[in-house]
């Protein structure tokens, strides 16, 4: 944590920007979980002293500009290809900390092959996967994770699984790969879950540092703008509607990962 700020003697420091983050406003809509997860990533990078070792891989999606918010080297991948870029980076820079940050369109549709193969190779990278059941950036089209019956701009009558297929459960799939060391699905929509989510991100990052294998933290998120809800409503909706289809929990945790002190 940044300790250089001068704090008056009669006051206590309770909140500040992590060193790993830039002091700026984000472009995210009010109430969007992207902002919360960025903050958690920043805190974990600080706590593990990773800032100077890190190379982040940005996705295409609402978080395409993630690099503006981190004091960290970054590359901007093509839509879905972040795990491949991360692979190239990690293989040639094994001493660096490489993470991707991806949405559900990015990771679970166009980039399905790249994430599964990165996981299966046990690529020593960490992925933060924001599942908001929609394509935020392009204006609210159906995502691979859009729930059955859910209305989007490209499923105006609600997702008909007979036509569009079923919402894909990526954590369950990634957990099947031999190379994955730590796969978990968390939520980013209430304080308890957010605390737990931060621990999961830390465990995922430590998994890479200790060389234990591929790690991915899926975050059940929200998109108030394209869900046509206010932030509070969207948080509740995420919890009540998404969690039954996408059960929270750890889908894979190797013994060595379990033994990590988080």
């Amino acid at each position: 944590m940044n300790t250089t700020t001068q704090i008056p003697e009669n006051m206590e420091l309770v909140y500040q920007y992590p060193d790993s983050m830039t002091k700026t406003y984000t472009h995210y809509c009010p109430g969007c979980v992207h902002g919360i997860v960025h903050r958690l990533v920043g805190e974990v990078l600080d706590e593990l002293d990773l800032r100077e070792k890190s190379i982040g891989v940005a996705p295409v999606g609402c978080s395409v500009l993630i690099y503006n918010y981190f004091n960290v080297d970054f590359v901007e991948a093509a839509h879905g290809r972040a795990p491949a870029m991360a692979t190239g980076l990690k293989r040639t820079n094994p001493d660096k900390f490489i993470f991707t940050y991806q949405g559900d369109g990015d990771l679970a549709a166009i980039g399905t092959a790249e994430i599964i193969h990165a996981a299966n190779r046990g690529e020593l990278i960490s992925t933060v996967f924001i599942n908001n059941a929609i394509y935020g950036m392009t204006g609210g089209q159906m995502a691979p994770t859009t729930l059955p019956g859910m209305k989007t701009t490209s499923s105006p009558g609600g997702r008909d699984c007979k036509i569009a297929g079923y919402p894909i459960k990526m954590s369950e799939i990634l957990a099947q790969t031999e190379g994955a060391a730590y796969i978990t699905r968390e939520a980013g929509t209430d304080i308890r879950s957010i605390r737990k989510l931060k621990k999961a991100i830390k465990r995922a990052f430590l998994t890479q540092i200790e060389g234990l294998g591929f790690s991915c933290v899926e975050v059940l998120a929200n998109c108030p703008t394209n869900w046509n809800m206010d932030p509070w409503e969207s948080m509740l909706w995420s919890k009540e509607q998404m969690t039954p289809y996408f059960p929270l929990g750890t889908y894979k945790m190797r013994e060595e990962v379990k033994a990590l002190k988080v």
Partner: protein
Amino acid sequence: MTKELLKGNVAFAEAAVRNGLQAYFGYPITPQSEALEHFSGRMIELDRVFLQAESEVAAINMVYGAASSGVRVMTSTSGPGLALMAEGLSYIAGSEIPVVVVNMMRGGPGLGNIQPSQADYNFMTKSAGHGNFHPLVLAPANIQEIIDMVGLAFELAEKYRTLVMIAGDGSIGQMMEAAELPPMQEISTARPAWAVTGAVGRAPNLITSLYLGAEKLEKVNIRLQQKLATIEENEIRWQEYETEDAELLLVAYGTVGRICISVLRAARQQGLKVGLLRPQTLWPFPTARINELAAQMQGVLVAEMSAGQMLVDVEHAVAGKTPVRFYGRMGGVIPMSAEILEAVKQVQEEVS
């Protein structure tokens, strides 16, 4: 150093290894798979990075990632694989990082076949991806030349921070010839200042092709075009054969360029004053030199293993100074020198 008998694919792969290649990512495809196989042994043995990707899409993006950190990296493929790489090629061009890609052209369209072809000329020189850019494209005609061009490709890619492609074809990949490999070069551990290597004691570096403001992106485009103009000024390469007194000019590159040397000899024996210009860079193209030579010619014959792709660039270069004719074979057929000689004679008859 002495010459050894080398297969084209193995030759360029080993040349890359000796030129200090730090990482190779690729996906098998005929007629270049021997290169990937060679890398798989050599790179691992030398404790460098080799990875067989799940697709050419992944391979080029792995290359993009590695290149972003400033290491010497390459991939190789053939038509159908190059099509999948087009996305990555454009991002690489847009973010101005040095990458080398070898394309051993095969017959198309579609799955086509695995015979030699030159039908990716337009793909490579004109539209290797979306947006405004040209890769620098080198065209070897024999094994020694592809070996030498690998070193040159890295040099140019790094000098200009640009995408360099080597346009081979199935026959250059598959044939064996005596050639000399370069000496083993040390791997460079230095990383350029623009590379992502962890922000230690400096502001964070960013490798991106994203510029949201139209005017910002236009500026980037203008800078890119200026760079391409500099490349065009300095890096055009070609070889001429007996052009001094020639009255009929052959223009051909790669395998066909090589065949045309035999055509030229046979034509000269029959008293025909034929010369040959063999482009060694397809982009930038030897436009000015062809234009200059056109003035002394009664005609120009372009020969290609395609429907006539370079032909358009030659016509543009000749600019109406003299008639331009074309002889091409397609679908993986290699033209025999006798066929091209026949075409030379026809042009000769037509123009005299």
